Structures are given as C-alpha cells and as structure tokens.
C-alpha cells in the first residue's frame, strides 16, 4: 500500500477512541436501518423501483437538465454551470463578493466538501459558519467530515462535550446529548441572521418545477437559506429527477437507509427568490450545477450516478468500521467513496481505496438503489492492473501464481516441495512465523499443512483401490 494511506490507516487503527465512536454511530445506524427495512415488506421492490427512477433520469440527463434550467430561470433563479471544482468554487466566491458578503452560513453539503468549497471560502476571506450540528462540531475541531451522514462519526459525546466547553459561550460542562444540542442551538442562532449568504446543497433537482429539494433533520437548511439575502445552491448534475413525485419516492428509500426514519423532519423544495408579498426568503437565488467527473461517470460507471448519499454502505462496511472516514483521504469514505475518489483525484494516488476492500458484497446488499459497488471497485482494480499501477511485488506474485495455476503438473510439483517446507516452520499444529508469510502471520497463525495435498492423497487412494 502507499505510504500515505498506510500512515492514515495505522493512525486510525491505533486510536481506541475512534473505534468506540465509530461503533456507537454506525451500530445505531445499522440497527435502525434494519428495523425500518423489516417493517417494509416489499423493500426489495422499492429498491428496484428507486434504481429505475434514477436510471431513467440519468438516461435522459440532458433532456431533464434542460427542462430544469428553463423552469428554474422562469422562477427567477440564476443558473450557473461548472465543469470542475475550480469553476464551481469561483462562481460561489464571485457571488459572495458581488453582494459584499462577510459571513456565509452553510448547511451540510457533500458536494461542497467534494469541490473544496470550505477552503475556497476561507481563501476569499469569508467567515464561514457551518450550521449542521456535526459540521459545527468538526469546524470547531478544525477537521474534515469522516462520514457523509454523520460528519462527526469519529467523535464520541465525551469529545464533543470537551469541544463545546472550550468554544461555546455556554461553558456548563455536560455530556448529556440534549444539553449539548441546546448549547449549539444557542451558539448558532445569531449567525443565521447575520449572514449575507446562505449556501446549501441539493438532494434533488426537480426538472418539471425547477425547484431544488433539501432534506434535513435539524431545520438548519431552512434557517440557512431563508434569512440571508442570497441563497446559493451547489449541486451535482446527477441530482436531477423528473418530477416532485419521483423526488419524494426516492426519499422513501434514502431516509430509512440513512437513519431508519420514514422521512426526515424537513423535506423542503426551494424554487426561486422571494416573491411579491413574501415576508421572508432570499432576494437572490443561485443554482450552481457541477459536473466534476459526472459526465465521465456517465460513460464509465453510470450506476454510480444513482448514489443518493445515504451512507448505508459506510455503516455496513467492515473496513470503514475499522479505519473510519479520514483514513480514506477523500471527501467521501467507505465503499461509495472508494468508487468516487479515484474519479476526482485520479487512480494513481488512490489505488489503495478500491484495493482495501474484502469484496464481501454487504454494501451492495444495503444500497437502496442497488449499485453494484463490488463490481465497480473491482473495475478500478482492473484499471490499476492494466495501467501497471500495482506494486511490482504484487504483480510478480499474481503472475507467478496464475502461471502455475494454469499448469497443473507444475503446480503440483511446486506444491510437493512447498508443503513439507512449510511443515518445517510449524510448532504443534500451527505456523506463527515463516519467511514470505508475514502478511498472514502478522495477525494470525497459519494451520500446519499436511505432508501431502488432497490431490496427492486422493491419487494414492485411487491407486490402492480405496
């Protein structure tokens, strides 16, 4: 593995607090999802339907994006297009500057993380206030999100209590979650109203109305997007859906998969700026539609464009649960992140991500839109192999093994030497150390092999008529 990935993994594995925090959050998520799915007799049918809804929009993406744009413009929204993250960030920063913004509130958006928006806002000298509770926590800790639904999944309540005691005006020490939530509510209240610009993402872009849909539990999206003079939406172009009905239908599978609820507390559609007679709402409404690799995915892995960002694959991934989100080194961790990050950052530096996976298939099983994640991950391995990016040692080992495996006589000849040799290193029934097996024996013992293989024993029995 690459040195950078290796370091991050080692750091994560050496942190016992991380394991506790991850297990609390993902364990709760797994239990709640299981209950929600068990209460839905034809969840399998709903999954198939949800995949079909996304596939339909992806198949007719240009048609629906064009329709969305026309309707959004008609509502008074301003629509911007960005090929990559630089263009997207520049558009957002320019809008902020054009209205003389000093403070910007943000409700959680993974696309924002993906394109590096927090950094771009800071570089432009804007005060950024994260309003989602978890994003608030990691902003205080000066960290990046480690989970796409629970950005602070790597922090225990004890960690959060310490952060709040250090940074909040209310210093009352408490590890009671309700009290901590109340403290954050107080802390962020003024910022909602002092910001000139509020930035949100979008869960869906609704083609037939030109509205964007946000789904949140806290209510921070509405407080981020309603009081400021300007609301900026950043969204990937794959968020397009045909109509309001399909947007709502997708939330049906998205929300139970994420949190186990039927619906989030707030499902909101935002369509254009403040209208005559409105007592609240933004004067300007901007939508920034971002490609950033999506048109490439349309060609190479269209199934991945179905992804609703529910996080179920993270919660059920044994690797994610072992190393947490930061070890992945990208905006998106877990199985979906290991598929996406090579698109954004290039495979050369990220080939560990699709390789560091047991291909156990649980991610695909829990995916609400049936994305064949293991197949896509293996697809990256194929590209890595074909591009000669695998370590030379791995290439030699794989080629040698396959060479011998395709030649049974040679294979058995080699085996007839290897087995007795391995037995030489055994103590009792086990080998706990021997040359060339450190990958295995570092973690566990290896059972002592028999003197003769099954095939040799079988041939001998056949020969003696047994």
């Amino acid at each position: 593995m690459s040195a950078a990935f290796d370091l991050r993994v080692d750091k994560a594995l050496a942190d016992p607090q991380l394991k506790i925090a991850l297990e609390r959050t993902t364990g709760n998520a797994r239990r709640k999802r299981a209950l929600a799915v068990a209460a839905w007799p034809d969840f399998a049918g709903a999954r198939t339907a949800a995949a079909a809804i996304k596939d339909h929009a992806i198949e007719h993406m240009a048609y629906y994006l064009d329709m969305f744009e026309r309707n959004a413009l008609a509502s008074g929204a301003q629509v911007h297009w960005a090929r990559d993250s630089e263009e997207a960030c520049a558009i957002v920063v320019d809008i902020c500057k054009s209205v003389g913004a000093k403070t910007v509130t943000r409700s959680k958006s993974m696309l924002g993380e993906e394109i590096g928006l927090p950094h771009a806002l800071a570089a432009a000298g804007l005060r950024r206030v994260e309003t989602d509770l978890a994003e608030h926590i990691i902003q205080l800790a000066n960290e990046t999100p480690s989970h796409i639904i629970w950005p602070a999944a790597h922090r225990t309540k004890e960690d959060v209590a310490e952060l709040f005691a250090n940074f909040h005006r209310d210093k009352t020490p408490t590890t009671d979650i309700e009290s901590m939530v109340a403290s954050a509510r107080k802390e962020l209240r003024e910022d909602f109203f002092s910001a000139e610009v509020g930035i949100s993402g979008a869960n869906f872009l609704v083609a037939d109305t030109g509205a964007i849909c946000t789904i949140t539990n806290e209510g921070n999206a509405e407080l981020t997007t309603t009081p400021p003079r300007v609301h900026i939406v950043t969204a990937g172009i794959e968020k397009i859906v045909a109509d309001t009905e399909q947007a709502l239908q997708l939330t049906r599978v998205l929300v139970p998969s994420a949190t186990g609820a039927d619906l989030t507390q707030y499902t909101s559609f935002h369509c254009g700026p403040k209208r005559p007679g409105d007592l609240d709402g933004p004067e300007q409404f901007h939508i920034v539609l971002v490609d950033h690799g999506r048109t490439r995915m349309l060609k190479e892995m269209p199934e991945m464009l179905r992804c609703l960002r529910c996080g179920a694959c993270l919660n059920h991934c044994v690797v994610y649960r072992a190393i947490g989100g930061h070890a992945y080194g990208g905006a998106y961790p877990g199985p979906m992140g290991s598929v996406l990050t090579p698109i954004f950052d290039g495979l050369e530096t990220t080939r560990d991500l699709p390789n560091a996976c047991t291909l156990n298939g649980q991610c695909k099983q829990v995916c609400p839109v049936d994305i064949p994640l293991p197949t896509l991950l293996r697809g990256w391995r194929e590209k890595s192999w074909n591009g000669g990016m695998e370590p030379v040692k791995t290439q030699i080992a794989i080629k040698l093994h396959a060479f011998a495996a395709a030649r049974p006589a040679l294979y058995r000849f080699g085996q007839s030497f290897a087995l007795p040799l391995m037995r030489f290193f055994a103590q009792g029934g086990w080998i706990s150390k021997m040359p060339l097996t450190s990958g295995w024996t570092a973690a566990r013992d290896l059972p002592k092999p028999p003197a003769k293989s099954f095939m040799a024993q079988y041939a001998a029995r056949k020969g003696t008529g047994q």
Partner: protein
Amino acid sequence: MNTQTRPRVGLFVTCLVDSLRPNIGFAALRLLEAAGCDVAVPQAQTCCGQPSFNSGANDVTVPVARQTIEAFENFDYLVAPSGSCAGMIKENYPELFADDPIWGLRAKNLAARTHELLSFLVDVRGFAPRGAACKATAVYHDSCSGLRELGVKAQPRKLLGAVEGLELLAFEGDETCCGFGGTFCVKYSNISNSIVGEKAANVRASGAELLLGGDFSCLMNMAGKLHREGAKTRVFHAAEILAGMAGAAIGEEN
C-alpha cells in the same frame, strides 16, 4: 438406484483445501456419494483464479479459468466445498468472458451447473445426513460469497440441524465479513487483523465450543486469529461434521 439417475459430479476441491485441509475434500466426497452422486476429481484442477481476478488481472486469469472450464464442463455438476470459489465460477467466469462468444458460452454453461456443496446437497439432492452425531455447541459463520452471491443461508443450518447432539447458537455478526477477502488479508494485513479481531471476539462471546462454516478460507482466518489469541474454540468446515469426519480441528495435530 441405477446409474442413469446418479448425476456425475466433478468435485472442485479448491486450492486451499487441497494444500492445507484435505479432510474437507474427503468429507465432501463422502457426502456427495451418500447423496447419490458419482463423484470424480479431475486432475487438471488447481485454483479458480480468484486471487488474480480480484486483483484486476483479467489477462492472467483467463488461462486459469479456461482450464477449469475444460476440466469440468463434461460433468452434470461442478460442486465445490466453498461459496467463494463456486461464486467465482458461477458469477465471475461469465463476466470474465463477456466479450468472448465461444468461451463466454462455455463459461455460462458451466456456471449454470456450478454449486456450493451444502446448498447442492439440500437444494439439488434433497439430502439429509443420517447417523451424524456431534455433542457440542456451535456457531455458524455465513461466508460472504456464499451468502450474498449464492443465497447459502438456510441450507447449512438445515443439514446441521439433523446432526445429533449439535446445538447451533445465535451469534452477533454471523453475516459480517471475517476480513479474509483473498489477497486483501495479506495486502492490508493490519485492517484485516482489526476485522478478524472483532469476529474472534464475537465468536468467543457466544461461548460456543465450535465455529463452523462453509468456506475453509474464512475458517482458516478466524481459526488462526482465535488460536493466536489463545482461544479454545475448535473450528471445522460443516462438511466435516456432516460426514462424521470431525476428528482433529483446524490446527490440531492428528
């Protein structure tokens, strides 16, 4: 039973069983014969090619897969005591030869007749073990490929349910990956260690005397970890119990 109704089964031993645990191969032979099959063990078999395929090395996997197809395509069935290897042949060979009209067809043809041992015994042969006994408590680990690619879940429990004296206990994380993952466990040994560590803890917490499963690869991983930790849990392939061949457990000397 006349020979016409006895299906001809080619036993795909799997490379790990061949090299490290022949007893599972002999147990499979015994069970298949007891289930009324004519069993042969083609000599031209080695490995299913999964290590290279899952490393993305399709080019070097092709000759290995062709050899397996040639060795087994004339049997009524290919049966393997592993969901992982059976899954490779059933699901991934057709994928590997997707662009090859001739080998693609041969791969699909073999895939349609490929089965994991325990599900084959129940679903295809309607087999129930007779006279098997094992007085012990056990937990059963569902191996990922068997469970998710091939739907192996109820079959081993049904078979083991017929073993006199054997009590199957429920345990936390029975469907969770053990961290083996083929080459993963050596390429990312530290992550694998963390995953199998959790698995071993769950097995120990169950208090079961035996850990059973249908894939030697996973069993070897978990047994190796349990032994490293000094646990007394004995680990067997389910076929060994069913065939009455559960003498020495994995890592115990004969």
